[in-house]
């Protein structure tokens, strides 16, 4: 960007630059003392998120060592059978839900904004809310084991074992509610990251110039939107059965435990790729740096990321090969499971080709990267084996599968993460980790891992089932298990070395030099020691590796010669750009530090925790308090009316400070959230049709059963009217008629309340008893889902009404009404589908 340096610019004045830097520092300053915990900036929240996820990893690792200790010798009594069940369940649960997925969000929150030259993600408070939710939920789930109350049904919680309250105690509720709460936080993070990737790129960074990491984040966050909601839907059914005896998984009353398996694995298999792809994304940044050349086959990586993202949704039944589904059904999933090896392999070859074409600099991150590729390829090959149904029938639920999944997850996720840890540590913490300790850590882990899990393939083929707490002597398992245990402790020693390397005091060591690996992407612009402002100025990007390919880039950046070099008004700001071409469209004011998000998260968590103990009054109290706290947060921190219309963002560009509708990030967030919401709803509808397929005539029952057609039809008409009123409200607002706006908002709310009531009245009036059979239970759950959505819509509508009265919603400043109307479009679709399924489908099949 020499152009900026040729033209005389105000940035030529060093005094001005100093003043700008002082202002920026003040605006973005990290609070000190207790107020430190009110921070919402990505660098703090991302750091807490990462540290917490790594802590849960260590916790779950100790559980893993307890498993290996118990299994070291036959007939061991180190752990009792029941406690062993809790230990292995919590090991899997914590590794997957509290480490593997959250660490993706954590790392992305730290590095993505600066990789995109943004000061922060568009919704920093949402990230903070997600973090506090994750912390509370994680501590709750993990803490249960200290009270002998941990979940003990395996990390995928199969009913009927887990719906039987005599066999499983409160642990199952802890699992369901604790994790549902965390899943909500994951979806929040996904929304944040999608909007961040699409709308917060620096000017000029067209979609073909986006760092590969951002491509992966986009794909993975999109996958979360379609993978997590089915599990939330499953959790709802599951908890309704445990708490209120609604028989979704009880075959005696028409239910079917297989539905849980479907919903769990529709989530669970994509989840494997949700943890794998972001880790591979780290390699996609590390490999070019250490090959000292641009990645070879950028488009092929995009193919691999997007292709894997899609194909991974066609694999879920390969976890259910032994459930007795027809061979033809199994074969579809087998075929897709083989097909997914194609894009997965493409990535590996791209990395190898890049390394071959470059001059490789050997270093600790590269060591972990190469170890990762080796282990992952091995796990991938056994994956191709178990994807073949006949082989899987032999290996299912044996230690062969345990070995396979650890090879894929440790090779595909843990080792790349360690590579990322060594690579990004100087970026986040200003100092390098030790090369020597890193090498020790790597070799201990690499050898220990293989010694642990390679023999398990044979243990499994010899017939040792997973999840047994002990085994008899002389079955051919003894030596193999002892070897695995020795390997596990070796692996743990490596983890300890790295943990020490991370935690040891480094105050006396010099700061790492800036861009210590000589990388080419924007995050390495960060100074050492780092500044709170994130980026000095939002750069103009015209290449894929600006630090390598744009002349004078770092100097221009340091001298603030790009956009937003200043914070004149004392506000936190970043640029919003267009999706494909990254044309600047808005200067976004992002909200600052607050304790409100922590409060909202703890109140929401309180509601989930109280529900675990069936404390209904407390649950309702917490829910109301959480709702109020979220409303206060929104009222004070969102759609803030700026003091002026436009702002000069530098380089002669003026941008609006307030935009609404599809131009605004809030609208995108609503849209993306509702996509996730629709996939949860689709999962419930899937449940309805699933029950229809397995019943000859009882689902839906013969004529005369509820909810009938009349009340659903009334509900549909009222909801249509409510939706229409919302449309008129927005129109009235645009025409500067606040009276009309308020009239139609009120009308919409009243009609929606009536619509929701009519929908619930149908099953009630026709006497559907949800505990009697799965049909009434399913009708009720879908009706309640839709009614609750109307209820949420009413709250939003009334919120708009209050904003209008408080002069925060006007014809010019109309973010709220646009976003709420968008919500209503989705609510309308939900209602239409509900009525079609509950009222019309029974007519069609009779």
């Amino acid at each position, binding site marked *: 960007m020499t152009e900026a340096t040729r033209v005389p610019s105000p940035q030529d004045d060093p005094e001005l630059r100093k003043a700008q830097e002082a202002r920026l520092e003040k605006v973005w300053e990290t609070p000190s003392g207790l107020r430190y915990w009110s921070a919402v900036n990505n660098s703090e929240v991302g750091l807490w998120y990462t540290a917490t996820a790594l802590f849960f990893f260590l916790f779950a690792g100790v559980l893993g060592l307890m498993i290996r200790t118990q299994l070291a010798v036959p007939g061991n009594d180190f752990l009792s059978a029941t406690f062993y069940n809790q230990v292995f369940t919590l090991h899997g649960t914590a590794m997957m839900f509290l480490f593997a997925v959250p660490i993706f969000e954590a790392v992305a929150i730290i590095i993505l904004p600066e990789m995109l030259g943004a000061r922060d993600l568009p919704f920093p408070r949402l990230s903070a809310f997600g973090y506090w939710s994750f912390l509370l939920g994680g501590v709750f789930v993990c803490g249960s084991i200290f009270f002998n109350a941990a979940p003990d049904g395996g990390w995928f919680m199969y009913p009927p074992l887990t719906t039987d309250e005599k066999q499983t105690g409160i642990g199952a509720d802890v699992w369901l509610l604790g994790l549902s709460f965390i899943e909500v936080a994951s979806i929040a993070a996904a929304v944040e990251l999608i909007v961040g990737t699409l709308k917060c790129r620096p000017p*000029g960074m*067209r*979609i*073909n*110039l986006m760092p590969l990491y951002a491509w992966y984040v986009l794909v993975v966050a999109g996958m979360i939107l379609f993978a997590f909601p089915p599990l939330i839907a499953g959790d709802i059914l599951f908890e309704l059965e445990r708490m209120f005896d609604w028989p979704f998984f009880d075959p005696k009353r028409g239910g079917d435990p297989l539905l849980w398996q479907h919903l769990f694995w529709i989530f669970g298999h994509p989840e494997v790729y949700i943890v794998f792809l972001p880790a591979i994304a780290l390699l996609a940044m590390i490999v070019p740096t250490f090959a000292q050349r*641009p990645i070879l*086959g*950028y*488009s*092929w990586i*995009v*193919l691999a990321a*997007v*292709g894997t*993202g*899609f*194909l991974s*949704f*066609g694999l879920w*039944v390969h976890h259910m090969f032994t459930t007795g*589904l*027809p*061979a*033809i*059904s199994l*074969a*579809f*999933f*087998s*075929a*897709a499971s*083989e*097909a997914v090896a*194609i*894009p997965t392999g493409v990535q590996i070859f791209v990395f190898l080709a890049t390394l071959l074409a470059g001059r490789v600099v050997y270093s600790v991150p590269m060591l972990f990267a190469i170890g990762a590729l080796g282990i992952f390829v091995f796990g991938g090959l056994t994956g191709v084996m178990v994807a073949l149904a006949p082989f899987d029938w032999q290996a299912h639920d044996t230690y062969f599968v345990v070995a396979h999944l650890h090879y894929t997850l440790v090779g595909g996720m843990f080792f790349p993460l360690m590579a990322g840890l060594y690579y990004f540590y100087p970026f986040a913490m200003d100092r390098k980790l030790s090369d020597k300790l890193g090498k020790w850590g790597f070799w201990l882990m690499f050898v220990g891992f293989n010694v642990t899990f390679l023999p398990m393939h044979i243990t499994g083929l010899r017939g040792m089932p997973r999840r047994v707490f002990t085994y008899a002597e002389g079955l051919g398992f003894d030596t193999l298990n002892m070897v695995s245990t020795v390997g596990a402790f070796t692996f743990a020693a490596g983890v300890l070395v790295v943990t020490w390397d991370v935690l040891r005091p480094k105050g006396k060591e010099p700061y790492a030099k800036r861009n210590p690996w000589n990388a080419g992407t924007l995050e390495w612009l960060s100074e050492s020691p780092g500044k709170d402002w994130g980026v000095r100025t939002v750069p103009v*990007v*015209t*290449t*894929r590796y600006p630090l390598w390919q744009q002349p004078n880039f770092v100097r221009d950046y340091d001298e603030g010669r790009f956009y937003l070099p200043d914070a004149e008004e004392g506000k936190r700001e970043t640029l919003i750009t267009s*999706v*494909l*071409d990254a044309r600047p469209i808005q200067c976004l004011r992002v909200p600052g530090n607050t304790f409100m998000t922590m409060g909202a998260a703890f109140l929401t968590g309180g509601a989930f925790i109280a529900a675990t103990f069936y404390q209904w009054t407390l649950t309702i109290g917490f829910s109301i308090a959480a709702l109020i706290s979220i409303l206060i947060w929104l009222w004070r921190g969102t759609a803030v009316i700026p003091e002026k219309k436009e702002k000069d963002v530098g380089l002669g560009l003026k941008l609006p400070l307030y935009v609404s509708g599809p131009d605004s990030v809030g609208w995108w967030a609503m849209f993306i959230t509702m996509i996730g919401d629709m996939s949860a709803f689709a999962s419930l509808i899937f449940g309805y049709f699933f029950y229809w*397929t*397995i*019943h*000859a005539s009882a689902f839906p029952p013969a004529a005369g059963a509820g909810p009938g057609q009349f009340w659903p039809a009334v509900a549909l008409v009222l909801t249509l009217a409510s939706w229409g009123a919302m449309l008129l409200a927005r129109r009235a607002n645009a025409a500067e008629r606040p009276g009309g706006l308020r009239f139609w908002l009120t009308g919409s709310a009243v009609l929606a309340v009536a619509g929701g009531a009519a929908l619930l009245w149908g099953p009630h009036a026709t006497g559907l008893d949800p505990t009697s059979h799965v049909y009434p239970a399913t009708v009720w759950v879908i009706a309640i889902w839709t009614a609750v959505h109307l209820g949420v819509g009413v709250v939003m509508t009334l919120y708009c009404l209050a904003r209008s009265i408080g002069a925060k919603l006007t014809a010019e400043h109309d973010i709220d009404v646009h976003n709420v109307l968008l919500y209503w479009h989705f609510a309308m679709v939900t209602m239409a589908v509900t009525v079609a399924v509950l009222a019309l489908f029974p007519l069609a099949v009779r």
Partner: protein
Amino acid sequence: MIASTRANLITLITAPTIWAIHFLVCYLSASVNCAKALTDARVFTGADWPDVTGARIAIAIATLAALAAIAWSSRQAWGHWADGDAEPPYDDATFDDRQQFLGFATILLCGLSFIGVIFVALPAVFIGDCR
């Protein structure tokens, strides 16, 4: 958005979306066919396994439609890719680079989806009943 002279993120994912829909049609038609035929627990009576002819016909039609749609998408993407002055690896900050990059990535995804559709349809060629 799907049919467009300008490549975008929707044109990019058209082919894998078609793959996903085709996958669902295959799975749902076969499993509904078999579930409905097996609800009388034929498996315990020793009678013949019910066949899946209905589902196979549906899958054949869906497969042809999906392959045709993917071919159409790749033809459109070919247009995006071929029409421009940018050079691989399309890493300049121009409209042509962006357009040709998206076109090329779309063609790759079309290829993967095409193979994927054939993979997923093959079971219906070899398996004729609900065993």
